[in-house]
């Protein structure tokens, strides 16, 4: 939530060129994008934790439907 107040101290609310350049970084964005979108190297069942989880899920299903 937000509330507006009158700006009495600063005369201008525009960012400076330096402020903008400080945050402008396409390489960082590109790397983060790769991290988000890249497929996992290991398949799900090759991950030990996931393997156990899938095994447990399979056992529960077996017990329920057997």
């Amino acid at each position, binding site marked *: 939530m937000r*509330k*507006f107040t*009158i700006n009495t101290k600063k005369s201008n*609310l*525009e960012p400076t060129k330096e402020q903008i350049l*400080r945050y402008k970084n396409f390489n960082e*964005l*590109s790397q983060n994008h790769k991290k*988000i979108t890249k497929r996992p190297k290991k398949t799900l069942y090759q991950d030990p934790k996931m393997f156990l989880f899938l095994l447990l899920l399979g056992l529960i299903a077996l017990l329920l439907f057997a």
Partner: protein
Amino acid sequence: MFYKKKNKTVYSESELIELSKSNHQYFGALYEKYFDTIFRFIFKRLGGDETVSGDLTQQTFMKAMVNIQKYEDRGFPFSSWLFRIAQNEVNLFFRSLKNNKTVDINENQLKSVLEDVDSSASMTIENQEKLIQCINSLEPEQMDLIELRFFQEMSFQEIAAIYDITEANAKMRIYRLLERIQKNWK
């Protein structure tokens, strides 16, 4: 803005958007072109919070990059799509806060609202505070519209593009809001 390859091929914006869908490196040119505009937009919306503006701008471009496949050219400028994402990011940020965030606005920005609400009123401190109270009593979505029109100084066409509505509809929504402020003002 154009993107130049080694062989000096020049791409138009629509070509860059299409190329970005298959290779995200082409998105760099769009990032270069619109970063400043989106940063300014978020910076103003946050009342000058530089660090959060930087984070939200990166987050905006990240979402745009991830969802560029879904982008459809409906005749609105590409920037309006980015503004829409930025608008959502800022609103999510405001919603995530436990306490109210105070956003600074200039006297000049208020002046334009006051002229539309009561042209005979002068910009005294009492009137400014009264007007701020009227605006703060609006719903967040209504505040967004007032902010876009008067504080971000966007045209009705630009607002319509952000909300994916007609220009006439954008005008009507803002005039109704001004009427509501006028009622509270009296």
